[in-house]
């Protein structure tokens, strides 16, 4: 019955002209994903499932929606493959670059192909992506960066703005405002919030100037 509905729905959208739902939308391929045939799933989980609920299909798991990552190559690869993702967009998806510099909590960290596998926590700061002579700079709020042994780098941030979209006047204003709040803060929570504001704005400042 479902297939019948599906068939009818699809034929309907191709024959009738819905002004707001063209047929092409249903057949769009997703850039960051692969369809569910990548792997058959965790066999231990499926066995346990079949024992408990033999009549229901086991649910899929995230690894079945992902292309498996390539294994560590024996020779040093020439380029770093970067995935730079935000909740709202995938800024860079499998982009081949020469180097990225990320603002880790321990300071600016440069990642080149063949970097040792790392999990780095990021603080608000400047992220720059170097591709040949091209340098793209973003200001990111905090996040994480993973570097894998196969020269894949995953950078996750909550917000990222290209540097040219930041207004220096607003940054100065924010900085002075939060410094004032920090001085007049009473409770620990207020102090922590004001401190975060000061940190972010001074990072913005140095990113703009430096």
């Amino acid at each position, binding site marked *: 019955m479902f297939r019948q509905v599906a068939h009818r*729905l699809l034929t309907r959208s191709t024959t009738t002209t819905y002004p707001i739902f063209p047929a092409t*939308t249903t057949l769009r391929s*997703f*850039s960051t994903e692969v369809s569910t045939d990548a792997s058959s799933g965790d066999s*231990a*989980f499926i066995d346990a499932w079949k024992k408990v609920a033999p009549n229901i299909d086991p*649910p*899929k798991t995230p690894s079945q929606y992902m292309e498996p990552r390539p294994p560590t190559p024996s020779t040093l690869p020439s380029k770093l493959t970067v995935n730079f993702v935000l909740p709202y967009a995938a800024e860079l998806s499998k982009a081949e670059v020469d180097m990225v510099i990320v603002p880790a909590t321990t300071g600016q960290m440069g990642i080149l192909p063949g970097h040792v596998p790392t999990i780095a926590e990021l603080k608000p700061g400047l992220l720059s992506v170097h591709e040949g002579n091209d340098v793209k700079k973003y200001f990111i709020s905090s996040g994480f960066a993973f570097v894998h042994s196969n020269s894949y780098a995953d950078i996750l941030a909550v917000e990222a703005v290209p540097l040219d979209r930041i207004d220096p006047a607003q940054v100065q204003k924010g900085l002075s405002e939060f410094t004032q709040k920090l001085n007049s803060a009473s409770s620990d929570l207020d102090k922590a919030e004001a401190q975060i504001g000061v940190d972010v704005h001074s990072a913005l400042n140095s990113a703009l100037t430096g």
Partner: protein
Amino acid sequence: MAMAALRREGRRFAPLVSSPNPINAIRSTLAPAEEQMGLGVRSISTQVVRNRMKSVRNIQKITKAMKMVAASKLRAIQVRAENSRGLWQPFTALLGDTPSVNVKKNVIVTISSDKGLCGGINSTSVKISRALHKINSGPDTECKYVILGEKGKAQLIRDSKKDIELIMTELQKNFLNYTQVSVLADDILKNVEFDALRIVFNKFQSVVSFLPTTATVLSPEIVERESEAGGKIGDLDSYEIEGGETKSEVLQNLAEFQFSCVMFNAVLENACSEQGARMSAMDSSSRNAGDMLDRLTLTYNRTRQASITTELIEIISGASALEG
């Protein structure tokens, strides 16, 4: 014989009046309409059928409108769900996918919709949650629920009331964004003790296909335990940890961030699936209403023609009686 017919009629009318479902009532009106003919009450039968047709036509219009609304909402949210798909992939690439992990404290986060009329997706999520609960509750393990959405709450509260830790509803009242979901995730992390969080949602594959999925997020202690044991997260030790005072602090932040990212994607995907399922449910509903309308029209025409024929017969037989 007339009394028997009346009695038969009376019994048929009772379910007609009391049943809220017009579909079953229609089948029972078809016969009495013709029986009423025998008793000479003709105009009421066409009236009854005409009322049915009017209500069915209204239902068809409403469901068509709901389908259009769902289609436009789907288009808006589909873009956002697709964009958020890159967010959970790095975590799965780093920590692997471990749905069969064996831990003491399991928490199942069931994501469901607030509004109904969206096909079977909420029932599917609840079925999967219940099966996961059965797999993971043993003599020394416990399994709790955290429910997002009214429909899941309504179904799970019936038989698993004592296992429910937290219920959150009305997620989509304000526009879904990452800040809201991270506050939600924070709430869950603060109030619920867990070793493994299993998030159950419907992943949006296409307008007619929604795949029930479960994503597993482990607490930092379990990540350490699994990485020491080897297996999928085995090579976590080979990763250098930058930042933070200790490795466990960074792993703690990592687990929290992973949870909020996976939740964000899951909530968006479920919302997409909800709109898609609503579209197809409303579409089949409008089509059913159209079919019913066709059948009712035929009945209407038949009863109308029959009453005309009867009148003609009466007139003609009356006239011929006068002549002859």
